[in-house]
């Protein structure tokens, strides 16, 4: 006889639970030391409140009704609930504010590898620190937390989610052509993107730039190259690249510049990111361990204008990487 549980959910038994708990505890201690107090919010929220944060409520798919018929949704991340908390419970608090969390979130499974319907996220949100200063703190903290968790070879990919769109706009590509091209980029279909670029009928140099940009990734040097929009201070992407260069400098001061990969093709699917975006990798695992970015408009939608950035790690995926690291000895 079988009594199934939904695909993408799982029971965790003591041996695995002990290991997950140990990883979580080490990461939590790291966040606490950095001044990021842990907070918790309800798993169920009013759907219209989540939607205020982002149109799709960051992909919240599980809904139910309360006794009065109001629509409740299971949160799909912690960033939107924390934005709500900041604008309501900390409406007058002096920024910066620092929060961490270890909480379950729920999303419909997209059939991809490593996808879960229910997953445990450990992450941080840094509120009220604009620009590269905020981003450097968040990225360095994520790297440190993974060091604590026993990972050795992890890297953080850093890009700017708005970069490609800005480049298209600056080259005079019509607004209508943007969406299908950005969708190709987000699907990682660089062949399709190349066909779309060719159909625009641009000059050779501009066409090459649009085709090559998503493939440009590496160290500090990729922020200066010809393909990255020309010498510093010029070119259509210079503002975004200037931000990334500033971020690199701060990461160097923090001693973690060699742990990051600048990736001009990086995009994240969540709609609230406004600038820098992050993705965390480990060579032992074929998919990202987590991600994040800058979201300067999100908290404003709840009534308090504050710049912010954050990063979340999937604790189960971190565990996978850590187990592989152990196996290497």
């Amino acid at each position, binding site marked *: 006889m079988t009594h199934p549980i939904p695909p993408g959910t799982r029971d965790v038994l003591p041996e695995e639970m002990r290991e997950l708990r140990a990883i979580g505890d080490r990461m939590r201690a790291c966040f606490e030391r950095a001044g990021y107090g842990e907070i918790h919010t309800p798993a169920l929220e009013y759907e219209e409140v989540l939607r205020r944060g982002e149109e799709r409520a960051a992909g919240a798919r599980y809904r139910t009704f309360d006794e009065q018929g109001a629509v409740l949704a299971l949160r799909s991340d912690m960033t939107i609930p924390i934005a709500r908390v900041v604008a309501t419970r900390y409406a007058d608090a002096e920024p910066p504010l620092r929060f961490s969390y270890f909480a379950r979130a729920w999303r419909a499974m997209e059939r991809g*590898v490593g996808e879960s319907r229910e997953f445990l996220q450990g992450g941080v949100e840094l509120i009220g620190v604009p620009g590269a200063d905020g981003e450097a703190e968040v990225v360095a903290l994520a790297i440190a937390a993974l060091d604590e968790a026993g990972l050795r070879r992890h*890297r953080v990919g850093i890009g700017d989610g708005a970069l490609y769109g800005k480049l298209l706009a600056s080259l005079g590509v019509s607004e209508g052509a943007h969406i299908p091209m950005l969708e190709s980029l987000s699907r*990682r279909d660089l062949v399709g993107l190349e066909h779309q670029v060719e159909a625009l009928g641009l000059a050779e140099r501009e066409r090459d730039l649009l085709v090559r940009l998503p493939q440009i*990734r590496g160290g500090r040097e990729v922020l200066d190259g010809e393909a990255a929009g020309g010498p510093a201070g010029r070119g259509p992407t210079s503002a975004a690249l200037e931000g990334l260069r500033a971020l690199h400098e701060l990461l160097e001061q923090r001693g973690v510049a060699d742990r990051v990969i600048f990736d001009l093709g990086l995009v994240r699917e969540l709609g609230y990111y406004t600038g820098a975006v992050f993705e965390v*990798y*480990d*060579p032992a695992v*074929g*998919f*990202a361990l987590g991600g994040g970015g800058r979201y300067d408009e999100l908290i404003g939608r709840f009534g308090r204008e504050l710049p912010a950035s954050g990063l979340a790690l999937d604790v189960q995926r971190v565990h996978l990487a850590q187990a592989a690291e152990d196996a290497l000895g």
Partner: protein
Amino acid sequence: MIEGFSVAVPRGALFDGTLDLLDGLGIDTSEVRSNDRRLLFADVGIVTMRPSDVPTYVEHGSADIGITGKDVLLEQSHRKVYELLDLGYGQCEMVVAAPDRGDPIGEALRRLGRVRIATKYPRLAAEHFAATGRQAEIVEVKGSVELAPLTGLVDGIVDLTATGKTLAENNLRVVETIGSCTARLIANPVAHKLKAQQIDSIVERLRG
């Protein structure tokens, strides 16, 4: 995940073209060519498999890059892999075909409001008919798709054809072309970042 660098190579129609391509990159494929039972050739970083498994291995990172047909990628569009390059060989057409008498597909739509279609590409076929505003019942088959309309199982098929010879021999004709498919180079998203140099050098040499 293999710690060196590994390539998923499709057996079947794309096999020879892919091995020629790898020869061109200076990878020694003689062992792979001479041994058609072995699957893993660790010393040269090659794993061989059926084309429809290539996106699975690459998505998991069990192979860093792979070669497979665009037909496979269209059918498995949920796989999170980079599609890096159109390799040009293995040219085929994805078509809708039907028995070569009258208009069975149009007839079924007019009189029964839906058409029955057999295919090995259920998602792709369903999307094609939905996108063209027609109701279709998709029947997934594993073997020779050409048989299905001949026995009255379906009104038409969606399948890949290179020369159209098999279709003609079974009295089927192409009624619509959905798209053209060639071999593609794909990469695991994490390998694409952490092994950027190896991947870029391969892409550059293949672009020629």
